[in-house]
C-alpha cells in the first residue's frame, strides 16, 4: 500500500509541475505540430501550395479567315477550370499595366501575346514583333517557370502539328477513318483544319493530365492511402510523432527518476527513511511512479497524436507491444542514468546531453527523412531508442505482432538490464 502511496505522491508532483507536463506532452506535440503546420496540414496527399498568379495581355488579332486563334488558345489554357486550383490568371489591357502588376508583386509573371501571333504562325514567318514575351518577378522561380513551360508545351503542340502535316502531305496518309484523302496540293484551309484537330486533341490531352488522369496518355501514379499505405505527408508526420514520442518518453523516464535526487536535496528522502517504511518499498514506489508516468505520457501522446494529426498507430496488439517496449526501455535507461548521478544538477546535464545524443544515434530526429545513409541505421542498434523506434516503425506500418517481436524483445531486454543495474546502484546507495 505504501508503495502506491509513494508512487501516487510522485505522480501528483510530476503532473502538477508545468515544466514536467510541458516536456512530457506539450513539447512533443508542439514539435510535431511545427512540422504539420510547416507543410500546411494534411488536407490532401500533397502539401498545399500558394496559387501561381499570372497576368495575360492578349493583343493577338488573327486574320478574319484564320482557322484558329492562337492567342485565344493560350488565354484559354491559363484560364481553364482544370488549373483553377493552383493558377490564377488575370487579364490586363496592355503591357504597361501588366508590368506594373509584376513590379507590385501582384502577379508572379506576365505573358504578352503580340498582335500578329496567329498570322505569323499561319504564314510561317517569324520576327521579334511576333514573339511571346514573359516578364517575371525576379524573386520568384516556380510560378514563372510553370507559365513558361505551359506556353512552351502548347507551342510544341503546334510544332508537332506542323510536322504531322508535312508527313501527311508527303505521304498522303489519312488522319482518321472516313476523312477525305488530302492530295499533295491540298488547299490551305484543309491544312489548317488538320492543325486545328491536332490542337484540339492536344488541349484535351493537357486537360486530362490535370483534371482526368485516367484519360491521359501519360499517368504519374503516387501511392495513396487506398493503395497500400498512408499518404507521404501523413507518413512523415506519423514518423515524426513517433520520434518525438520516443525521445520524450526517455526524457520522462529519467526526469521522473530524478525525483529521488530532488527528494534527497529537499530532505524528504531522509525523512522517509525515518518512518517505519522499508527502504526497498520506498525505492519500489519511486520506480513504480516512473513506469506509470511513462505509460501515462505514451497513452496521452498517442491519443493527442491521433486527434491532432490523424496518426494511425497500427494494430492494437502491435501497438501494445511497442508501448510496453518503450516503457521498459525508457524507465530502465532513466533509472540507470539517474543512479549514476549524485545531484539534480548532474542529472540535468545527463538528461540534456546524454538523452539527446542517444536520441540522435537512435535515429529519433531523422526518422521522417527519406534516404538516410545506412550508417545511421547501424548506429541505432546500439541504443535502446533505436530498437523502440524499430518496433514503432513496424507497428505504424500496420505490421503484425510477430513482425515486431525482435525489436520488442530487444527493447525489453535492454530496458530490463539497465533497470536492474540502476536498481542495484540505488539499493547500494540508499538501502
Amino acid at each position, binding site marked *: *500500500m505504501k508503495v502506491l502511496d509513494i508512487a501516487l*505522491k510522485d505522480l*501528483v508532483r510530476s503532473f502538477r509541475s508545468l515544466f514536467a507536463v510541458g516536456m512530457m506532452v506539450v513539447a512533443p506535440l508542439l514539435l510535431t505540430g511545427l512540422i504539420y503546420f510547416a507543410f500546411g496540414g494534411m488536407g490532401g496527399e500533397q502539401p498545399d501550395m500558394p496559387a501561381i498568379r499570372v497576368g495575360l495581355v492578349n493583343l493577338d488579332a488573327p486574320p478574319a479567315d484564320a482557322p484558329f486563334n492562337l492567342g485565344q488558345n493560350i488565354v484559354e489554357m491559363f484560364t481553364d477550370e482544370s488549373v483553377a486550383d493552383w493558377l490564377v490568371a488575370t487579364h490586363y489591357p496592355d503591357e504597361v499595366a501588366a508590368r506594373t502588376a509584376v513590379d507590385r508583386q501582384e502577379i508572379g509573371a506576365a505573358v504578352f501575346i503580340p498582335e500578329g501571333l496567329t498570322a505569323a504562325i499561319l504564314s510561317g514567318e517569324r520576327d521579334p514583333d511576333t514573339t511571346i514575351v514573359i516578364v517575371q518577378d525576379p524573386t520568384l522561380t516556380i510560378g514563372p517557370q510553370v507559365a513558361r513551360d505551359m506556353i512552351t508545351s502548347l507551342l510544341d503542340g503546334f510544332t508537332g502539328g506542323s510536322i504531322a502535316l508535312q508527313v501527311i502531305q508527303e505521304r498522303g496518309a489519312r488522319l482518321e477513318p472516313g476523312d477525305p484523302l488530302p492530295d499533295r496540293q491540298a488547299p490551305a484551309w484543309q491544312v489548317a483544319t488538320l492543325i486545328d484537330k491536332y490542337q484540339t486533341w492536344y488541349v484535351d490531352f493537357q486537360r486530362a493530365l490535370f483534371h482526368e488522369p485516367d484519360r491521359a496518355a501519360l499517368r504519374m501514379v503516387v501511392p495513396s492511402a487506398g493503395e497500400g499505405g498512408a499518404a507521404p505527408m501523413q507518413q512523415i508526420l506519423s514518423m515524426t510523432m513517433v520520434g518525438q514520442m520516443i525521445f520524450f518518453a526517455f526524457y520522462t523516464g529519467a526526469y521522473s527518476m530524478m525525483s529521488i535526487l530532488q527528494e534527497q536535496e529537499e*530532505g524528504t528522502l*531522509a525523512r522517509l527513511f525515518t518512518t517505519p517504511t522499508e527502504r526497498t518499498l520506498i525505492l519500489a514506489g519511486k520506480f513504480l511512479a516512473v513506469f506509470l508516468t511513462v505509460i501515462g505520457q505514451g497513452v496521452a501522446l498517442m491519443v493527442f497524436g491521433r486527434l491532432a494529426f490523424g496518426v494511425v498507430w497500427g494494430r492494437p496488439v502491435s501497438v501494445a507491444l511497442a508501448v510496453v517496449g518503450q516503457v521498459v526501455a525508457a524507465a530502465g535507461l532513466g533509472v540507470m542514468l539517474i543512479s549514476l548521478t549524485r545531484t539534480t544538477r548532474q542529472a540535468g546535464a545527463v538528461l540534456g546531453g546524454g538523452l539527446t545524443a542517444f536520441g540522435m544515434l537512435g535515429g529519433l530526429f531523422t526518422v521522417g527523412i527519406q534516404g538516410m545513409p545506412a550508417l545511421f541505421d547501424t548506429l541505432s542498434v546500439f541504443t535502446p531508442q533505436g530498437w523502440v523506434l524499430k518496433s514503432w516503425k513496424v507497428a505504424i506500418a500496420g505490421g503484425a505482432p510477430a513482425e515486431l517481436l525482435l525489436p520488442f524483445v530487444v527493447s525489453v531486454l535492454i530496458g530490463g538490464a539497465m533497470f536492474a543495474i540502476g536498481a542495484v546502484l540505488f539499493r547500494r546507495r540508499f538501502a
Partner: protein
Amino acid sequence: MDTLPAIETQGLVKRFGDLQAVQGVSLTAHAGEILSLLGPNGAGKSTLISMLSGLLEPNGGDATILGHSIRTEPGAAKACLGVVPQEVALYPDLSARENLVFWGKMYGLRGVALKQRVDEVLDVIGLADRQKDRVDKFSGGMKRRVNIAAALLHKPQVVIMDEPTVGIDPQSRRYILDHVLELNRQGMTVLYTTHYMEEAQELSDHIAIMDHGQIIAYGTHEELVRLVGEQARIDLTLNVEAERVLPAWQEVSGVSRVSPGAEGLVTVLVDDSNRVLPRLFEAATEVDARITSVDIQEPNLEAVFLHLTGRALRD
C-alpha cells in the same frame, strides 16, 4: 517496577572513514522527560540523532527506543519515534494537508483515523485555514510548524528534534519551544538537540553536553553548573591581540581559566568578578593594552562548556 527508558544508547559508534564522529556514546532518556543534547556544531549530535532515527547504521554499540533495538527491530523502533529534522523536509509543491496525509500514511495511518488526526494536528499548529495552500507559499515559521506536525501525526511516545529553531525568527522560535513543553506535558519524551544554551536551560529535565563525538557531561542544569562551582564568566574585548595580556591575566589571583577568542575577545572564568575585574584592568594597563568592552555572566551552561573544553560553546 522500573519504567522502560525511552531512549537508551550503549556504546554507540559511528565512523566516516578516519573520522570517528560518535565515540562510544552511552546515554539514557527517561520516559516523559526532555533530554537536551547540547554541543557546538560538529560535536556529533546530528550523527547520534541520525543513528537513533534509523538514517545511519552504527559501526558499533546499540540503542533502544522503548526497548526496541535500532539494529534488530528498526521498524518497531521507528514506529515509536517522531523525528523532526533540522531543515524543513516537506514537499513544497503539495499543500499542507497533502503533506500531512502523506506522512501520516508513511506512519501507517489510514482512513478516518488519518483524517481525524490530520484535522487535529492542523488545529494545533494553527494552519487549519491554510491547509489547502501549497507549502512553498508559507512563511519560514509556518513551514517549521508543518514540519513538526508531520512528526506528531502518529502520536509517537518519543520525539527527536534536531535543532528545530536554527535560523528562524524569535516569534516562531518561541512557538516551537512552547510546543515542545506542551508535548512533554502530554507525556511525550523529547530528545532535543541544540547549540543554544538558553534553550537547553529552559526546556530540559536533563542535559547531555557533547563534544568531539563524546558525552562530556550529563545531569540537570543545576548539577552541571555545580561542576564549575560559583565561577562567573567575564568576556573582555581588547584593542590589542589577546596574547599580549594572557600571561599577566593567568597570574591574577582568582582567575581559574583564560581563553582567547577571535578579534581581541578573551573569556575569563573567575571566582568573584567584583574582586578580580579591577586586577584584570591593572594587568592590562601594565602591558599597554586597553579593555574596550566587558560582559559579566553568572555561572551557566556556557561556563560549564568552557570549563570542560576550554572553548566557548559557539566557537
